[in-house]
């Protein structure tokens, strides 16, 4: 269990968490990016404009 950095609520994490993965906070809905897994470190996931092609 780790705290949501937006609302402070506990965030449930699955076992095979990967760096770069985005998890949603079930309480406030914030998108959190996994910066590290051992120990788990979360930060607000950046908004990234999606483009239709490169």
């Amino acid at each position, binding site marked *: 269990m780790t705290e949501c950095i937006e609302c402070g609520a506990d965030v449930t994490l699955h076992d095979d968490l990967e760096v770069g*993965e985005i998890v949603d906070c079930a309480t406030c809905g914030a998108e959190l990016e996994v910066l590290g897994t051992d120990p788990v470190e979360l930060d607000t996931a*950046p908004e*990234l404009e*999606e*483009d*239709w*092609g*490169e």
Partner: protein
Amino acid sequence: MTVVVKIGGARAVNPEGALADIAELDEDCVVVHGGSTAVDDTLDAMGTEPEYVETPSGVVGRFTDEETMDVFKMALPGLVNTDLVTGLQNAGVDAVGLSGVDGGLLTGKRKSAVRVVEDGKKKIRRGDHSGTIQDVNADLLDTLLASGYTPVASPPMLAEGTAVNTDADRAAAAVAGALGATLVVLTDVEGVYADPDDPSTRIESVETPAEYDALTDAAEGFMTRKVMAATEALESGAREVVVASANAERPIVTALDAGG
């Protein structure tokens, strides 16, 4: 009038029809090319797998890490561009190759992080070398055209001091917009059909917002990108956009006749 011709960059596609056509055009001409298959072939020759990622909305695109970016430079401004310029020189066209980095031809903002979906998981991938064109150095193209040269341009573009990948159809659109030119997009497919099962419903050109709304509705699969690029070209100042088959005997003249 200036014509911007977007051609594929695949070596397998024989561009000779297009090259001979360019030699006979009365109009000033700028050629823009891609070369994604040449990038994949070169990666393959080096024993590396190309990496494609899918965005949350389902768009599949290349993930261009630093090593892939070096291969991209080798394949596009290196192999494909040099071969095209050589072919044009042999066809009597005084072609000059340019990448988007040359003279800041294609500049804009870099996107180094992308949201992707892998195995159903949302992820952020960092280290991508891609960007979105915001400015075209039309002066460089005008300078060369005024002296009788035919610019042959391709990605990469220059973003925040780094050469990065950008879509070649959109690059052609940006160039056509900046020059107020007619854009001829040559493709291996026969075009966009209002009814894909009925060859007589091919949409040959778009000149009005209503027409390209119809085109957008009709475009499917990978053609979507070409239509989006056509939309960008028109919105940024291109006179007209023609999406046409590269396999016609005189593909550009045919496209201009159909579009004009």
